[in-house]
């Protein structure tokens, strides 16, 4: 059928493809009207005889048309006659002879599809879908104020619709790309936000021991200077006494110095040095934990001790937990090694611990962290006795951007990212919560990494 379509010989006729004639108009007019598809097909009077109508179908100016409009003397369309119908009649024995001289009104479709020229392409597509049956034998008539205004091709409507769809789909594709990149940005900013929070906590955790370490060292240095001076004076006094010289001056100096440094001061210094060693050890631990935590020096997926990851996350979250005076009940169970990306699992654990801590607004905060092996899977349970999650929020907590925190405090991506990480590992994350009693998160991970690469 398409191969039959040839360019209309009459330049007054608009081309029958919207895309080729008015590409820009089609794109800007949304939704484009049927007027853009209009063909000024000369109408056929109802009394035209069948043979003459058949002749018209052979005329180049009607080529490409499935059917011709039949329009009464008053300008109102009364029907359509299709090539298909004519062919059906002519193929009957003596069809041509029987019907050739009869008026076309006898054979025409009296209920053709008639649409207002102001209708949109979308309306036309819907009307076509309702009216026209397979095989497609008719095109349709356009009217303006009830009077014949031309015809339009079903095929053109399809093309126009397809053009729209293509356009929409590029737009959708663009929107998708935009969304995707902004999601990546959000994931990044969530990472930065938790990083910022973590750094703030760590800075405090490190500066506290650093505070007394530095102070203790400064004081020790002062005491040592005094001690050295005392030792010098004592030595001088001893030398004088042994040499039989006058030792009084040296002894006086020793007396003065003794008031500044005595065994009590030295004992104090010993205690301060113990503290100092403790502080240096603490800073060292923190740095080690931080390195372990970020796994900067380790490969992606590996066999890891989940209990150790939990301990490490607890250490990192310590400042948040301690600041809120939360009691942590750590119940590590026996676990085989779990194949996972430790840095990612750490991120999940830290996120859950932080959420748990932030949910606690009273002073008897308690977080239970337990691990268990269940049927070839490892399970981490994190339960708080905080305010709980409102029933209407429970279904949405894993949704990206969903947050109950004040604007600017949470990106709403924490749990969404956590779930993504756990699912990439072939695991699952579940939550149960009761308002006023607390919330429990359970993370289940397969012991063997999922086939999907957890990158």
């Amino acid at each position, binding site marked *: 059928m398409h191969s039959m379509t040839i360019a209309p010989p009459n330049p007054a006729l608009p081309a029958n493809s919207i895309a080729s004639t008015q590409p820009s108009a089609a794109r800007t007019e949304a939704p484009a009207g049927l007027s853009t598809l209009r063909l000024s097909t000369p109408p056929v009077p109802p009394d035209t005889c069948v043979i003459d109508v058949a002749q018209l179908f052979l005329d180049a100016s009607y080529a490409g048309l499935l059917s011709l409009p039949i329009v009464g003397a008053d300008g109102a369309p009364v029907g359509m006659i299709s090539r298909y119908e004519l062919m059906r009649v002519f193929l009957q024995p003596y069809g041509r002879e029987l019907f050739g001289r009869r008026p076309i009104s006898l054979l025409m479709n009296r209920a053709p599809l008639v649409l207002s020229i102001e209708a949109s392409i979308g309306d036309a597509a819907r009307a076509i879908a309702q009216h026209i049956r397979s095989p497609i034998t008719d095109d349709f008539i356009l009217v303006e104020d009830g009077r014949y205004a031309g015809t339009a091709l079903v095929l053109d409507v399809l093309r126009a619709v397809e053009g729209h769809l293509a356009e929409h789909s590029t737009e959708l594709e663009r929107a998708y790309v935009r969304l995707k990149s902004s999601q990546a940005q959000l994931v990044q900013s969530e990472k930065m936000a938790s990083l910022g929070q973590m750094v*703030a906590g760590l800075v*405090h*955790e490190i*500066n506290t021991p*650093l505070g007394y370490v530095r102070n203790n060292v400064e004081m020790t240095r002062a005491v040592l200077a005094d001690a050295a001076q005392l030792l010098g004076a004592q030595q001088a006094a001893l030398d004088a006494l042994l040499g039989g010289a006058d030792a009084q001056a040296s002894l006086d100096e020793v007396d003065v110095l003794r008031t500044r440094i005595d065994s009590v001061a030295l004992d104090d210094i010993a205690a301060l040095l113990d503290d100092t060693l403790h*502080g240096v050890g603490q800073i060292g631990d923190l740095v080690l934990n931080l390195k372990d935590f970020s796994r900067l020096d380790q490969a992606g997926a590996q066999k890891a001790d989940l209990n150790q990851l939990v301990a490490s996350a607890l250490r990192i979250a310590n400042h948040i937990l301690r600041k809120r005076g939360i009691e942590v009940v750590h119940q590590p169970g026996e676990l085989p090694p779990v194949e996972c990306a430790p840095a990612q699992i750490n991120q999940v654990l830290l996120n859950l611990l932080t959420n748990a801590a932030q949910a606690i607004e009273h002073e008897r905060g308690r977080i239970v962290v337990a691990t268990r092996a269940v049927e070839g899977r490892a399970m981490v349970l994190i339960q708080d006795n905080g305010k709980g999650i409102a029933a209407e929020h429970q279904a949405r907590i894993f949704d990206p951007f969903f947050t109950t925190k004040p604007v600017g405090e949470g990106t709403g991506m924490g749990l969404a990212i956590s779930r993504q990480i756990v699912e990439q590992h072939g695991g699952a994350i579940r939550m149960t919560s009761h308002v006023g009693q607390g919330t429990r998160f359970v993370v289940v991970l397969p012991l063997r990494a999922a086939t999907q690469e957890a990158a």
Partner: protein
Amino acid sequence: MNGALPCVLFVDDEERILRSLRMLFRGRAEILATTSGREAVELVRNHRVHVVVSDQRMPGMTGVDVLREVAACSPATMRILLTGYADLDAMTASVNEGEIYRFVEKPWDAQRLIATVEQAARIAMDEFDVQASRGAEAAPTANAIADAERAAAHVLVLDEDGAIAAQVRELLPPAVAVVRAGDLESALDALATQEVAVMIAQLSSADGDVADALKQLKRLRPAMLAIVLSSLRDSRLLLGLINEGQVFRFLLQPPPRELLRRALIAALERHEALRTQTRLLRRHDVEAPSRAPAATISARVLGAWRRLREATVARIA
């Protein structure tokens, strides 16, 4: 310190910090120490404590909470925050609610901490002495607005577009003069010729002239109180404004109306107290700026700065 030692209270949830500080101040002060904020407040209620040095991040009660309560129950006690890390919100609260004397970071410099605490102790001891000789000091019940009217004190607003000045104008009764300066140069000119009680400054850059000028101004005009409005969440900037500028209030922009109004009233009240009881000025004394004034004030405003200095010298003479 001859005879009586000042009483210094240290508050930190880390025992080792307390032990270390105890040792540092041995012989220099009578020392109280606690790991609990709650207990710290109790100690201040029951002892004459000259200086409180508190950590910020502690379980139960934060340092700002402690200092706020201390300020309420013992206003003569000087308050210092000694912390390993404070976010901007905590710092802002320490200024606006705790009205702290110094913000000191851990790890601290031993000699500087001693000097800071001893200076604070001297100021508090004098204050307590005055109170003792006068009996219980009557709380300033005077109407700050009326005082401001009487003293013909001006409120100077340094903002480029005039929006803040308009708001300040609207918040204060007509009798209190509100002067607007579009830039630092004209602000300094206004300061040279008028008695300014409160200066409200919009701060749009952390290392511009305005921040430096505010620090210098506190030395030239200690009774003038500065309210800084800024959208910069820069803790370095605020640290400098506290220790070197004794900024009176720090409000994030745009300031809620009521907050700005309360800050203005509090500043006018404090100015009146400082004007009539000049010994109180010492409570707002500042650390030497890290950079010299001539080097920091740009050439453009240097002329206005000189006029201001001359005016100040002339007034004192």
